[in-house]
């Protein structure tokens, strides 16, 4: 289960983006790569959320959550039509 990948939405504190990054997308990408060499970003968000969604293992999600500038790493939820 620890190695099973699922989708997480990663919320970032944009104000904490290191100066070395010129664009938030680079910072998001770097943050993802820092915990996983193989995880793919699904979406990068910048208007209603600062962050991205990606397929991660629980271990990778935990590692990401502990990094500077990460506000929350939340498992994806499924919604239903009413």
């Amino acid at each position, binding site marked *: 289960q620890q190695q099973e990948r699922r989708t997480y939405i990663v919320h970032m504190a944009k104000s904490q983006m290191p100066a070395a990054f010129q664009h938030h997308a680079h910072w998001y990408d770097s943050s993802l790569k820092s915990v996983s060499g193989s995880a793919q970003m699904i979406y990068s968000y910048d208007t209603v959320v600062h962050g991205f969604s990606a*397929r991660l293992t629980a271990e990778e999600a935990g590692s990401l959550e502990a990094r500077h500038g990460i506000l929350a790493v939340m498992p994806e939820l499924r919604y239903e039509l009413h």
Partner: protein
Amino acid sequence: TTRTPEFLGLDKSSSLLPASESVNEVVVGVLDTGVWPESKSFDDTGLGAVPSGWRGACESGTNFTAANCNRKLIGARFFSKGYEATMGPIDVSKESKSARDDDGHGTHTASTAAGSAVDGASLFGYAPGTARGMATRARVAAYKVCWLGGCFSSDILAAMEKAVVDGVNVLSLSLGGGSPDFYRDSVAIGAFAAAEKGIFVSCSAGNAGPSSMSLSNVAPWITTVGAGTLDRDFPAYVTLGNGKNFSGVSLYSGNSKGTLLPFVYAGNVSNATNGNLCMMGTLDPAKVKGKIVLCDRGVNARVQKGSVVQLAGGAGMVLANTAANGEELVADAHLLPATAVGEKSGDAIKMYLFSDPNPTATILFEGTKVGIQPSPVVAAFSSRGPNSITPAVLKPDMIAPGVNILAGWTGGIGPTGLAVDDRRVAFNIISGTSMSCPHVSGLAALLKAAHPDWSPAAIRSALMTTAYVAYKNGGKLQDVATGKDSTPFDHGAGHVDPVSALNPGLVYDLTVEDYLGFLCGLNYTSSQINTLARRNYTCDPSKSYSLYDLNYPSFAASFDSTSGGPTTIKYTRTLTNVGAATGTYKATASSGSAGLKIAVVPDTLSFSKAGEKKSFTVTVTGSAMPASTNAFGQLEWSDGKQTVRSPMAFSW
């Protein structure tokens, strides 16, 4: 939709409604199953150029190109990356990897909100008339986020992000199921950003009623919509061999011979323990062939029960409600002669079935009847308060038509949605808070056109404070689940009245700062606020944040039943004058319970110019009451011409 424009008074009030040029500028974004662009509801005849500020697009994909858009359907995007990441690649032989609606739900909701007028609409002759959206001149942008396997939050967030950037003015989401924490709920997060940018977001309240505390989408920056009935019905009677008649409803399209046929109870013609439910493969064809079968409602889809009876050789079906549904009747376009009856009728019919050695029945279809009273009544399925997350915010905000609503449909599947249903229809009749939500979205578009400077909160306030809670004869709004008066936990501020909402006189306005203060009142951490609101925001430790001071157009609270004594809550509210330049409004607070005392200070507010704001406090004292007690009241501000009404709801 047919009938709802008349039911809402939109047909008689053309002089009060905003000019078509201003509605032309409003874009309603619908997050759903996509859109069937060939539907006549998206005909762009008579519409002017696309609004100049529109930045949306029509994305190409399976059976969909930019050519499918026009001056009515001005945007069509799809978001499947999150869905595919979890479910695997979309099988385009089963669903379109594009904004094309294979399901029907998205076409129905989009056309309800802002569909063009289509003459001669009906479903097999049922609910005939001119079908139109609430804001016929508004533009539609479809954002497909729901697929065969569900609607995923990563896609929903991506769609809301695009919709905000594209420039929608109203967002309509007829879906739910997120987290109870706003900062974990993608719809609440996306809606916060949308509201911040002046976009009105309406969401369905959910279909988990009549259980209490069953609401979805309860964030205070979302307008939460429950469902009520229209004054329209589709009667189909069951006549038994003993001569007794029972009324039901049906949208069956064929004729009935009117001859009595053998009648059986599904539970008695099945070897399965749940045979009474008419689940797939549970009926014995030898015992069903040529007979009418009574199936109990529940577990599987209503229309599937009819299909199961048909596949077993049955000649007809009576679908009986159980206690879970009571007397609520939802009409379906069954594949065989069938009618749905309430629990009481179902029980009486079963008594006949169990007592007569040779029971017989026939079903007679009466078509469409309008003028049914009382109406509206709160639908049993409509989710109910109290708001379990933030009891200080009353939800749902209001109800709107959501039962047996005719609107546009996909050409991809039949009206039942069953694979065996090869019928194709331009319009379908379905029910749910999914259907009530886009009514309010379209009405919000009208208000936005009439008052471009109003905030989303002001638009909601106008809709809520002018909603009605009594019938023209003075009787109180009813709840079909109980057969009794409905309460603010069922109907919120009441049933929407768009013509009155155009000119409410006063509004309770809200800004992003107010919502941030509300989050402080919830004791959210800075990190949680940043997650939800995308900013560094620190609650002032020296400040006392009260949830009761959120300038909401309703009043609610949960009292402690174990306190042993009365509890007092003080609310602060501010009204903004959006009516005549001058006016004096007097407050009248009333309570339906001896356990509630309500005081308003000051009880008179005088406005001397447009846009002026005046504050007041409401002090509510609740006596000690047993747990699960509810009490209700209302506050009205009136200048003799206009009345601004707020519901009050308290639970112990």
